[in-house]
């Protein structure tokens, strides 16, 4: 297959897909095992969109690729599609999500212990928004449900994968004392 042809095929697939396409899926559809070949074609495509100042862009999010609009033109797109812009996650939802992202798989009880408040309502909303999923059950009395983040979570926050967010140790909130008192811990 010619590189140019491969590029066009990928363009069609990325345009048509309603969620980021993983390398795995791409290589299965195109029937090419060589990931480098596909990555190369995607990079070419990316550059092509950039060079001709397209309103679209090839993005690499959620462990996959997708063709999306450019943020500069968001005001126009939002006129066509209102609901997507009006929605914003609440602070409790964001806090709960960050706990799940770092501690997954995690139970409701563990989340509530950290936040100090009931989480059932927030969890339901997050499940409905597909930002989290039930990833199993903990082997504890009552077999509590375990929660984890989804591909939609990574897409929503524009993350290629979870390693893109800083580790917990790297997060230094203002209260963290610069000097630990001697002999603690």
């Amino acid at each position, binding site marked *: 297959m010619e590189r140019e042809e491969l590029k066009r095929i990928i363009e069609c697939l990325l345009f048509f897909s309603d969620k980021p396409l993983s390398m795995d899926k791409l290589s299965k559809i195109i029937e090419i095992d060589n990931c480098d070949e596909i990555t190369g074609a995607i990079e070419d495509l990316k550059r092509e969109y950039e060079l001709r100042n397209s309103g679209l862009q090839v993005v690499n999010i959620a462990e996959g690729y997708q063709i999306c609009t450019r943020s500069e033109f968001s005001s126009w797109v939002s006129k066509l599609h209102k609901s997507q812009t009006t929605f914003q996650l609440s602070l409790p939802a964001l806090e709960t999500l960050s706990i799940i992202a770092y501690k997954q798989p995690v139970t409701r009880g563990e989340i509530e212990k950290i*936040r100090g*408040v009931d989480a059932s309502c927030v969890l339901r909303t997050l499940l409905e928004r597909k930002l989290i999923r039930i990833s199993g*059950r903990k082997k504890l009395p009552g077999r509590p449900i375990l929660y984890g983040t989804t591909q939609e979570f990574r897409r929503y*926050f524009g993350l290629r994968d979870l390693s893109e967010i800083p580790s*917990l140790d790297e997060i230094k909130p203002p*209260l963290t004392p610069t000097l630990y008192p001697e002999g603690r811990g």
Partner: protein
Amino acid sequence: MDYRVRLEVFEGPLDLLLHLIKKNELDIFNIPIAQITADYLNYIKLFRKLNLDFAGEFLVMASTLIHIKSRMLLPSIETVEEEEPEDPRAELAARLLEYEKFKEAASMLKEREIIQRDIYGRLPMIPGEEEYTIEASLFDLLDAFQRVVFRAEKEVREIIQEDLRVEDRIREILNLLENRRFISFETIFSGQRTKRLLIVTFLALLELIRLRMVFARQAEPFGNIRVYRAKQELVAQG
């Protein structure tokens, strides 16, 4: 006259404590418990005065604070000479620090959300398989059941003596799910005419949901309900 006061909204007791610590520039490892408890209780009084709905969690924290204070006042009995007695405040400080980290992480996610919100991808055109993600509530199930009963009522009026057991219906529902991942809510009741049978089947379904052997899910609120089989291992245990 009705007017509203806008004050800082606290996500919970830990959030309020963090706010008090920052406001008073306190050392998190050396929290003056008496002072912070007084401040904390003042806020709760304020919540009451403003008729704000506040959750019981705030009161739990108040009692935790008072408990810590009382532990600090009492001499500990089993103090081993060499070992420094544990500071009763240590656990609270650790919790506050941990919570603060996640608050920070949340604000980082917020920033990403704002950036990402302006980038649009294609929207799904057909609701796919994975769209059935909303856990159907008891009310959703009751609504769906009502429709089933309503339909059945119009069909036959016949008195049949039946020997009905919830256990049998449970087994039948599981049989229906044997080789499938899900069945529609209506399928479970198909062919069932009498009210008693419908009710017993419904009870069996509720029991299976309670036991987490099946999941009732919808694609959208008030949408059709599908009953999904839980993971194989769970069914085997049941």
